[in-house]
């Protein structure tokens, strides 16, 4: 918390993180070349994206060294997004129409 202790990443480390992200990008494109059956292709794509986002948040945005409260905010917003979509799907996926919709 003190002004004297802001984490400073080394240039080498930052480059390492960047390269890891490039590799993950190539990977996420590469997995579409091998046909993974539904719905696992979506799962894999999202999983890689989540890993990339976590890496960016932790090492570029310095959450790894930062106050835990900031991490909590990030997680909380993701959680509330999932609430929005999760509960909305409870409706949209389970609608029973008396006649098939048009």
């Amino acid at each position, binding site marked *: 918390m003190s002004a004297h202790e802001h984490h400073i990443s080394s240039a080498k480390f930052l480059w390492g993180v960047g390269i890891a992200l490039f590799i993950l990008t190539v990977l996420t494109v590469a997995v579409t070349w091998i046909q993974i059956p539904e719905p696992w292709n979506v799962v894999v794509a999202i999983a890689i994206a989540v890993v990339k986002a976590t890496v960016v948040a932790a090492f570029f945005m310095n959450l790894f060294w930062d106050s835990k409260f900031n991490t909590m905010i990030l997680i909380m917003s993701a959680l509330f997004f999932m609430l929005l979509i999760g509960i909305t799907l409870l409706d949209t996926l389970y609608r*029973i129409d008396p006649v098939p919709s048009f």
Partner: protein
Amino acid sequence: MATTEETPTRKIQVKRFKPEEYPEKHYLNQEKGLWAWLTTVDHKKIGLMYLMSVAFFFLVGGVLALLLRTELLTPARNFMTADVYNQVFTLHGAIMIFFFLIPSVPAALGNFVLPLQLGAKDVAFPRLNLASFYIYVIGALFTITAIFTGGIDTGWTFYTPYSSTTGGSVAMMTLGVFILGFSSILTGLNFIVTIHKLRSPGITWNKLPLNLWGLYATSLIQILATPVLAITLLLLTMERVLSIGIFDPALGGDPVLYQHFFWFYSHPAVYIMIVPGFGIVSEIISTFSKKVIFGYWAIALSSLAIAFIGFLVWGHHMFTAGQSSLANMVFSFLTFLVGIPTGIKIFNWLATMYKGSIDLKTPMVYILVFLFLFTIGGFTGIMLGALSVDVHLHDTYYVVAHFHYVMMGGMVMAFLGGLHYWWPKMFGKMYSEFWGKIAAGIIFVGFNMTFLPQFIMGSQGMPRRYYNYIDQFQAFHQFSTIGAYIMGVGFVIIAAYLLHSLLRGEKASSNPWGSRALEWQTSSPPDLHNFKHTPVIINGPYDYHKPMSEFQLGIATPHNGHGHHEEEGMDVAETEKEKA
């Protein structure tokens, strides 16, 4: 993180600071001129500017309401056409909700009180605070433009596809509300950071005034829900401008999806409106009962619980909208869960009054009115949460009466209570206690006359947003209209005596209610920088069993801790906070 070795071993000098009575220099006269007001970053002045704005919009919304009630005196046309009527009820709803209720307590009263209650000199981002006020003004200008360039007749809910096909300036209006959302977000953001980072030495989480717990919960809702409204209204605006069709069935979209998005914000928004009211009630009940609050943590945590569960219940606005039975079941169940923390609060407040020393001053009268009316609002909410009954009552006057009991009987009463409570602190003037109670009585009678008949009408099937109605409802409508006029008289009286107080009111002492809370331990009106010392807190804000002198402590420094970089004040404050 600072470690113990770094803690300076310097001695802190804590002294007693008795607030100055009738100060000559205070925040109202330290900077002069209109320009100084318009560019001020002082949270108190910004709060007052908000207060004036919300008062203005309350007046506009109120006049619109009286017009509506007058039109409804008879079943057929009185003096408005259907189109005008539809525009008027849309504006009444939109103005009251977006321009009055949402900013009323957080932005107006909250801005004024929050830093004072923390013993801070200002909110964390004073310029951002001013910016959010101007964003509010810009949003308001957009809305006013919309009114004069075609009007809007969609209802404040802007349901598609009606809103995407009807005439008028819907896009301008939604854009105005979109902009307004940012004002709300920035206020919430500012408050959260301020509460986290700018507490005075000794204000630990368990000594935080309950008003701030209320504002904290409100701010959380503001930052988490408002962006969804923003994107929804942006999509709706695009729907009007570019016909993107996501919500418009004519182009392949789904209108019920719009309702999900809209209520994901607008239901929590109900709690943006009411939760800060809870905070005010806790403050006032404790002060005027001169007694420690009953169940501090129960009240504090129930605010957070309401804020959280409030996010999970939006679908109860859509029980008949054609959503799946599964969703209906989940939403209905969760809706009832909100009732529990709300009930806990009511019981805790009653328990605080038990064996207290109750002084029925005007703010306390409003809070008792709040308790009664809000309880009715709550119980009728249970009625509407019950699925099979809601199928019958949905979109009838029962719903109208319910939310007016919650919003007006709850929030507006809490707002009036808070306004009367902090009025002496804001302006250093007292108002007429006699007229204050008369007005409260008139509003109470008028309010119940207006909205009780609406419960009966609604149960009998009178749908809302009706310009004409069938003859059997006329007696109820007329009774309701007369009640609305009476209520109007009550508000005119309030305006009159508050104006009188501003111009000719008696001077107020620094702590006219004998409160232990921190904002009363500075002069009335406060200094430009709130306190002339950095306050030190050792007791909770409701510890009425402890002597007043224990609430008037501060750090003694040569420069009173203002304007300059103060070595001493700094180190002590930081180490105290670390401990917290």
